């Protein structure tokens, strides 16, 4: 009973933190700049209420509770994915060229990771929902890490608020992958503990997001970047690449001449 009590307390605390986060988001008028994130928080609160009511009325182990819990979870995962996309777009879309390339690459990476996670779980169809959940979280984490790598490589300025939101999403997703994998292996023993650990990680993300809204929401604006014309870019890029190609040829030539000398 103790783990269940702990889980329920954590659940209540999580919902409270979600409400606090929502109130901050509304107060700072972030529904204008981050509508997807606000929707996600709203849906998370709604899910908590629906699932808690179902547990109360039908019992935590009933089929209805199972279906409602995982059904609402699917909606929540989609909302989370949209919130992550919103952050990525806000960060990279100012640079239209980079965004056009990065969005395709990141979506491709996310899809590959998702497919891998599904294929790797092929022998455990009885845990299909769990596997799908893990796959989506895996894809989300891969997407966010990829986004941060792009940001670092191109030296793109990312507002601290968006940065903190993305870190919170990524850490939570990574932990869900680990937690789901552990749950899959110790299914019988770790049920309540799994749920509790999931809540604790989510709480940590909520605290991170609340801190971000409190401290960085005001600084969340961006300056529009200038653009080259497509013709100009094509010209510059071609010149650059032809020179780099020349470098490659010279290197190959020098390597061959060195080999023949030795």
């Amino acid at each position, binding site marked *: 009973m103790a783990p269940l009590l702990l889980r329920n307390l954590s659940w209540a605390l999580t919902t409270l933190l979600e409400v606090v986060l929502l109130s901050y988001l509304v107060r700072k008028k972030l529904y204008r700049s981050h509508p997807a994130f606000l929707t996600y928080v709203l849906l998370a609160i709604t899910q908590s209420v629906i699932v808690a009511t179902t547990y109360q009325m039908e019992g935590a182990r009933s089929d209805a509770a199972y279906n409602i819990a995982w059904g609402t979870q699917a909606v929540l995962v989609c909302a989370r994915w949209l919130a992550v996309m919103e952050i990525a777009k806000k960060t990279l879309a100012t*640079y*239209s*060229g*980079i965004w*056009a*390339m990065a969005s*395709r*690459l990141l979506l491709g990476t996310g899809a590959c990771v998702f497919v891998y*996670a599904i294929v*790797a779980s092929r022998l455990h169809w009885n845990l299909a929902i769990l596997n799908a959940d*893990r796959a989506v979280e*895996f894809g989300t*984490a*891969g997407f966010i*890490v990829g986004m*941060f*790598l792009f*940001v*670092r*490589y*191109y*030296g*793109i300025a990312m507002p601290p608020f968006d*940065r903190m939101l993305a*870190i919170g999403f*990524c*850490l939570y997703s*990574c*932990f869900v*992958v*680990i937690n*789901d*994998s*552990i749950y*899959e*292996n110790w299914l019988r023993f770790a049920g309540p503990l799994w749920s509790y650990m999931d809540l604790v990680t989510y709480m940590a993300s909520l605290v991170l997001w609340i801190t971000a809204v409190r401290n960085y929401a005001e600084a969340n604006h961006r300056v529009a*970047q*200038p*653009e*080259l*014309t497509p013709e*100009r*870019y*094509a*010209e*510059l*890029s071609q*010149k*650059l*690449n032809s*020179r*780099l190609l*020349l*470098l490659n040829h*010279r*290197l190959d030539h*020098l*390597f061959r001449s*060195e080999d023949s*000398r030795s």
Partner: protein
Amino acid sequence: MNLFLILFIALAVLLVLLLAWAVRPPKRTLVSQEDIIEALCEKRHYARLPQILQCLRPEDTDFLHSRGYDNLVVRVRRERKGIALDYLRYLEQEYQLLLDATRILAKVAPEVSALDEFQRFRLNLRFLLYCRYLRWRLRLGLSPWTIFGILGDMEGDITLRLEAATTSIGERAAIASEFPLFLQNRRDGSQ
């Protein structure tokens, strides 16, 4: 615990580590467009390549060696090795400047080719590895200066790497000539 589960956990941990690496502040702050243009207008280090190659040639110190000035030979070679290492460091800095220029170009470009960007990334890695390798060759290989066979090999390596560096630094010319133009275009467009 099966292999897939271990792999999942390991990959998740790897993602967290990658995240930690990606979000930490960069050691080198990216310079502005103006800084790059200014730096590109300065005298380039690769112009001194012939002197550097000359000072690394064994014939340059053979005379002193034949006269019995062994201590002086050691000192001269040590100092020249230091100069070569400094030269290599400057080349790396110049290459980084070129890379910064390509990144700025990508940031203001309306369309970026993933293939081109990947190619540049790959070339950057290759260049950095060559520089690192050459630096260690200089540090380790130049110590036994009297072994002319090793020095001959090193000279070949130096020629190879510095040729590569010189050619790549030549990329700056394209950027240096084009950057003011597109900045001018931007200014004209904004007015």
